[in-house]
């Protein structure tokens, strides 16, 4: 009885070890897999510094080049989360240098695009997406092209163009509606300036700066009245001095202020809209 058991044990042992050994060590049970699991878990838990260390360890020890793409991309992502954007770009490019499928290559290209947007290098981003456009022909890929170009326009606060790009994906696209909404809430700087050109202070009031608008109107009215008064009483020198040094100065300042307030307000709207999208939008985002 004992002998049978021992024999069956030995058989089972040999069989199982042979199965594992036959595959050169199944990845499930090798040390590399364990390191990879710990790296992945660090990455998921947003411990990016340590995740980078472990992925670099894998890059060094893992002889299988097929796995390297994932490591490199995750290092790039980690650096991007840590705001080390230039390191991030370097690692994405290393991943691109490996022999990979087109779909993965496109995916990495969009990651590079997102980092370029965060750095604010819009020319490089635009060049990259133009290159991708040359290679892309079929539907879904074109959609993601429009999608990312839309995000590029959002980062540049070109809300109208962004809405147009998202509209190409589907007419009532969620982001398209949002961008159009933001675009409609922006003030026209030229209009505000013209308003203040016609009635001093009106542009400021239109853009919500009531006190400044009233003060500007008051000053221009005061010096304008004094100037006309001086000319009417034939005090030409006084009139010229008041007109040149005071009236024109405040009148010009009034138009400048109106434009500045409108620009500030637009910038504020755009910044808040972008922040809102980045924190609340559920889909893929840079």
């Amino acid at each position, binding site marked *: 009885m004992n002998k049978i058991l021992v024999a069956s044990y030995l058989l089972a042992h040999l069989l199982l070890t042979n199965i594992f050994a036959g595959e050169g060590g199944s990845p499930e049970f090798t040390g590399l897999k364990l390191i990879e699991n710990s790296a992945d878990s660090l990455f998921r838990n*947003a411990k990016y*510094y340590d995740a980078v260390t472990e992925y670099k360890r894998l890059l060094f020890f893992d002889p299988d080049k097929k796995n390297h793409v994932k490591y490199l991309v995750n290092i790039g992502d980690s650096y991007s989360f840590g*705001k*080390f954007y*230039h390191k991030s770009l370097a690692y994405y490019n290393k991943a691109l240098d490996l022999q990979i499928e087109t779909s993965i290559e496109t995916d990495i290209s969009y990651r590079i695009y997102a980092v370029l947007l965060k750095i604010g290098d819009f020319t490089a981003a635009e060049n990259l997406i133009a290159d991708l456009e040359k290679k892309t022909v079929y539907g879904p890929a074109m959609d993601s092209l429009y999608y990312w170009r839309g995000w590029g326009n959002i980062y540049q606060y070109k809300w109208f163009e962004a809405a147009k790009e998202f509209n190409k994906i589907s007419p009532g696209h969620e982001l398209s509606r949002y961008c159009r909404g933001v675009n409609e809430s922006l003030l026209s700087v030229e209009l505000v300036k013209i308003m203040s050109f016609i009635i001093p202070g009106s542009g400021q009031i239109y853009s919500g700066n009531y006190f400044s608008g009233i*003060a500007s109107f008051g000053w221009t009215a005061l010096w304008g009245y004094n100037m006309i008064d001086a000319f009417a009483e034939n005090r030409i020198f006084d009139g010229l001095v008041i007109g040149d040094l005071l009236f024109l100065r405040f009148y*010009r300042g009034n138009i400048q*202020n109106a434009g500045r307030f409108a620009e500030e307000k637009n910038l504020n709207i755009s910044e808040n809209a972008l922040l809102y999208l980045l924190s609340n939008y559920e889909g893929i985002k840079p």
Partner: protein
Amino acid sequence: MSKSLIPFFISFIMLISTFSLSAQPETSRWSAETGSENPAKSAASKSGGQRGILSNIQKAYKLVWSDYDGDNCPFEPSCSFFLVEAVDKAGLIKGALSFSDRFMRDLNPIKKAGVHTLSEKGKILDPVNLRINNSQEIFRTLIESRTHFYFHQMERQR
């Protein structure tokens, strides 16, 4: 061997340039919240001091007058703020004298022609520390502004 102790001030400059030579080095363990930090930003920030009655006059002037008469001053800090700071740092007489000098420089129609360090808003940087006849302050300010300028350029290159 030299008799005096060496003021190793020079290495201060090098210390800074060490960091700027390689872009964004990792110098300590970071987390997603802190990420990379720019040493130039912390060096550039300054806090304002306590100022007296003149500061209030300047604030009132800004509130009722200079906010509405347009963007006229090509310098940073602006002339009125310069006066307040100069009087605060160097006393009434020196402050007033340096203000009159600043006023005349403002009147100079070709002031933009020279070689200047420009601020981020495109104004000519003309800090008070350069204008209160203290050679050490002038020296320190020049080094600071040049290193800051250098960082500014590095940022733009990125």
